[in-house]
């Protein structure tokens, strides 16, 4: 299945891009996707990165074709 990945703030800077598409085995879970992305871009987990699936913070969601997965560094609004 094809997924749209988005990166924000410090993570966009580290990854060197804001958006990309990735093809995944349909058996792959969000945990597996995170593992792949964290390894590829050397994201540091200790920074408490949150992941949103279709704008929702729910790490237990099962992925499906066309999902938008966003990698979010700590929030800094206000």
């Amino acid at each position, binding site marked *: 299945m094809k997924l749209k990945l988005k990166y924000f*703030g410090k993570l966009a800077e580290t990854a060197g891009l804001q958006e990309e598409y990735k093809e995944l085995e349909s058996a792959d879970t969000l945990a597996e996707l995170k593992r792949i992305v964290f390894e590829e871009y050397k994201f540091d987990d200790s920074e408490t990165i949150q992941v949103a699936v279709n704008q929702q913070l729910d790490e237990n969601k099962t992925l499906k074709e066309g999902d938008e997965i966003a990698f979010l560094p700590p929030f800094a609004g206000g």
Partner: protein
Amino acid sequence: MDKKKPKKVFVEGAIPPEKIAKSIANHQSKTNIGAHSIFLGQIRADEVDAKIVQAIEYSAYEEMAEQVFHEIRESAFSKFDITCAHIYHSMGRVNAGEICLFVFTSSAHRKIAIEACNFFVEEIKAKAPIFGKELFEDDSHQWKVNK
């Protein structure tokens, strides 16, 4: 109804004091209001390793943020007996000394307006996917993290 209207939260650059005055003036016809509570976030020229913050450049996951603002608003209107509520947050560059967040709640009674305003501020800080790049005078930067 004020509650239902879709609201534009993000504004480009700093929030000018005149916008705040205009918001206040707009409420003078609502004579069931007895109290307004306003919170303003202003960019501090913090010193980090002998370098001074000149500005913050804000970015956001806008689609998600709009969703989050909508949920915070729904939740606030169900928790507090407020007449209306307005929130504005800057996108892009905001210089030290300028306003980046404007929260404005109104109610018949002061305690409700004040509690609702605090609720909005805390919820926005905790839940809105907004990111801030603190820019120093030597063109270096660091990423802001909410405490």
